[in-house]
């Protein structure tokens, strides 16, 4: 199939997933009552709409960031968490909850973005001129450190309620977000995504290795800055608003490559669409699971993602055997 018609299909699927996310839940809300002046209309405007918009944006930036990271590191196992930005943003959020700053307007978001920003600066300092290896090692150091500090904050939580609130937030969810959350996170995600869409040509050139890319006039140093800042802003903002949602950035580029081929620039936009479809669908499904409350999106994604990844692994082994 031609890439253009594939992209049209993805676009349609994304619209369908977005509609599903607007409608699905303990209460189904059909488009006829979206504008109604009753409980249904209220649920739609105050709860469903922000949730669906966030799902769309978060999924898109996670899919896109995953495709960029895999292209840059030329490693299909890389994902946005490799940089340690997610872990650092999560640490910021956890500290905010611990200090009670999440009760202030935008307190949690600001702290998580501070965490993400600090990790961006540290990464740029650590990996200066080091190429992808310095980059991965820097990201690992950051992830480990932020993870340890997060565990430390949980361990010193004043009471079980605070600890459970922190853990719950960490697991990632899109429940009870407001339009205000959307407007706060959106500019960061949009800016980050915009930067990342410009990396396509350089990522293609890296197919030839670092020397090959540089001999084609690609400035790898600048590419590294664009990726750190782009992924940092986009993924940082997504963690700040929804906690850590894993697997999207890892899985989606794989699926897209199977349909579009492996050229890095060709899978950027489709990966963004695919990420949005996956996240919106998963976030609709978690609302439909019967029982009290909801399955956390982060957990659902891992439950869906792990078997899928195993399948992928088996297919690779079969292909290489």
């Amino acid at each position, binding site marked *: 199939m031609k890439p253009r018609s594939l992209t049209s299909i993805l676009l349609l699927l994304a619209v369908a997933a977005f509609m599903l996310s607007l409608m699905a839940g303990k209460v189904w809300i059909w488009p006829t009552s979206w504008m109604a002046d009753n409980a249904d209309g209220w649920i739609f405007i105050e709860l469903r709409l922000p949730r669906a918009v966030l799902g769309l944006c978060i999924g898109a930036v996670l899919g896109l960031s995953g495709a960029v990271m895999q292209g840059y590191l030329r490693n299909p196992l890389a994902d946005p968490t490799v940089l340690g930005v997610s872990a650092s943003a999560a640490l910021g959020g956890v500290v905010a909850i611990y200090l009670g700053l999440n009760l202030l307007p935008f307190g949690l978001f600001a702290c998580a973005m501070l965490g993400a920003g600090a990790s961006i600066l540290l990464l740029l300092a650590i990996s200066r001129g080091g190429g992808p290896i310095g980059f991965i090692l820097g990201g690992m150091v950051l992830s480990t450190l932020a993870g340890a500090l997060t565990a430390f904050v949980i361990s010193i939580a004043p009471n079980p309620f605070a600890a459970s609130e922190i853990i719950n937030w960490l697991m990632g969810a899109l429940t009870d977000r407001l339009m205000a959350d959307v407007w706060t996170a959106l500019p960061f995600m949009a800016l980050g995504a915009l930067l990342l869409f410009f990396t396509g040509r350089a990522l293609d050139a890296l197919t030839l*290795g670092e020397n*090959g890319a540089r001999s*084609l006039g690609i400035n790898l140093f600048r590419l590294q800055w664009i990726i750190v800042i782009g992924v940092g802003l986009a993924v940082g903002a997504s963690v700040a608003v929804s906690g850590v949602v894993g697997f999207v950035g890892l899985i989606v580029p794989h699926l897209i490559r199977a349909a579009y*081929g*492996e050229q*890095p620039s060709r899978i950027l936009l489709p990966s963004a669409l695919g990420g949005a479809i996956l996240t919106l669908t998963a976030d609709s499904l978690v609302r439909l699971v019967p029982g009290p409350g909801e399955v956390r999106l982060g957990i659902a994604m891992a439950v869906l993602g792990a078997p899928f990844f195993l399948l992928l692994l088996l297919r690779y082994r079969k292909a290489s055997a």
Partner: protein
Amino acid sequence: MTLTVRNLNFAHARQPTLDGIAAKFEAGKLSVILGPNGAGKSTLLACLAGLLKPDTGTAHLDDEDISSMAPTARAQRIGLLPQGAETHWAITSEALVALGRIPHMRGAGASTDDRRAISSAMSATATEGFANRPVTQLSGGERARVLLARVLAGEPQWILADEPLANLDPGFQLDILDLLRRQAEAGKGVVAVLHDLHHAVRFADHVVLLNAGKLFAQGSVDEVITTSNLAHVYGIDANLFTDEVGATQLFIKGKISS
């Protein structure tokens, strides 16, 4: 058109050093850089390609200092075939060759010039037959030709090739050498790092012999590849003779026991 290296020094912990190299490469010639492992051949080529900046001394393309050229302008004029034949994703041969157009691309998509250059590079290397096959499925010899087509697609004035024959069987080695030779005859400057002295003797117009980071000799094949130079640089005992059609041939008898 010339590539000129003047009093070039380069010292780095992770790279063989260069010490006061002065050399000159001319367009229309196939120049070969020879020397034992660690002599600094690849370092010299990387300085010529503008990937490494010399500590002191300069590498000039005509009268422009290569290390101060804008990367894109440099990439349009100097093409590099890096060592190791890296290809990281299973993209088609044609898509790989198209990467050579990156220095010329402005907006999105390929122009008519781009498409013409890609198809002429693929026909020059006889790679059209597998244009739609993923490069990861090609044999080593086919992939080497596709990678060379990638360099040709950029239509550079200079083609720098770092060990382009590594891991190829003798037939494919001759194919690649023949392609490089034809590029030189068409007026391009070609500089290749080679290990096989027989190939250098047969194909080179100009030889630069390095030893331990220093220039040992440069000039024509007859001037540089001599029994005494080979004994001194490689520690081998070699004979040079003229064969029945009048071409110079090399025969390596063995290692000189010290």
